[in-house]
């Protein structure tokens, strides 16, 4: 029910709308619930609405954490 997916904003339109790309499929969504969205941003899409922006730096940090653990796990 709370399922939501990261999508890339490729166009910001009028009336709080945007066009997003989901792995090649484009779709119009609503930006009524999220401020300051720019073209190129990744947003979390839920039932037609962008709910939050995805922070690429934080995503990298989390992925790096897995990699660090990867070494720790190998060592253990």
């Amino acid at each position: 029910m709370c399922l939501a997916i990261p999508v890339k904003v490729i166009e910001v339109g009028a009336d709080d709308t945007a066009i997003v790309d989901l792995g090649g499929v484009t779709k119009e969504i609503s930006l009524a619930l999220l401020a300051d969205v720019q073209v190129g941003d990744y947003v979390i899409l839920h039932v037609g609405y962008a709910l939050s922006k995805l922070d690429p730096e934080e995503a990298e940090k989390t992925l790096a954490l897995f990699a660090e653990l990867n070494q720790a796990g190998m060592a253990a």
Partner: protein
Amino acid sequence: MKYIDEFRDGELAKNLAASIGAAVEPGRSYSFMEFCGGHTHAISRYGLSDLLPPTIRMVHGPGCPVCVLPIGRVDMAIDLALKQGVILCTYGDTLRIPASDGLSLMKAKARGGDIRMVYSTIDALQIARDNPDREVVFFAIGFETTTPPTAVAIQQAETEGLSNFSVLCCHVLTPSAISNILESPEVRQWGTVPLDGFIGPAHVSTVIGSRPYEFFAEEYRKPVVIAGFEPLDVMQAILMLVRQVNEGRAEVENEFSRAVSRDGNLKAQDRVAEVFELRREFEWRGLSVVPYSALKIRQKYAAFDAERRFKLDYRSVPDNKACDCGAILRGVKKPQDCKLFGTVCTPENPIGSCMVSSEGACAAHYSYGRYKDAA
């Protein structure tokens, strides 16, 4: 797809499993509740429990809106469709929930009810615009993730003067459900459900932020790690919980920092606060009547409240006697403990709500884990 595939890498999962295996202390057992159905689904689908040491037990929580929706609420929606002749718009999740008289929304549709599955409240509004002579009701269920889109729809309907649109509001609140579990006798007095920590919601937290969980960490001394819904997110969160338990810490940590902040989405929170207020009490399947655990539409938007417009009364309906959904939703029983599981109750013919949604504990176990027990 970007930001999904990287978080499903099998090799990294194995190594995270090795890290968890190295982190657990010998002779100690760990019991964590994943609150959300999204996590339950990920754990089953990716076989995460097979990657965990036997001393870690994952307890499925009540964070599946379809599962906790009581029969009486579905009856109200069916009544609207069959007796009041409205166009009832609903997310697909609710269609197969068993209701009274052997009905479900799907069966009510087969009997002629004008029930339409929508992807978004935007679609429900469009149906109302296209059918000015018909009453259109949106059956709004879900936790804090799904509530803001309903608020937007109600405000949009007001702006446009869409007077044939209304909402049957069944939105519920995550923190109230967590409190209810922590206060339950199984956890507090009898200790039959040991709980050493929680995996906190992913998308609910994008809206409400991580702050609301701080109370549980402080007051109940339970660690909470907010995690994304991808398998590596869940593994990482389990590792973080194990470390907190080992170190005697009870803090709120955020594994899903790529999308969740401490304050959450303030714009969405404002919209919700503008349209909704706390309901004095709401019945949950499994948790019974929980005070201040759900939302209702404010007086200001009363014209869009289907309960007021159609003078609907909620009537509590007991679950099927043989169904263990209630105990499963409180973490007291596992799906395979229920004698209906996989026999008369299957995803094709669900008797209880936990078998309906793919994120329900029973449906998840039926789809991905049931042969493991036989092996």
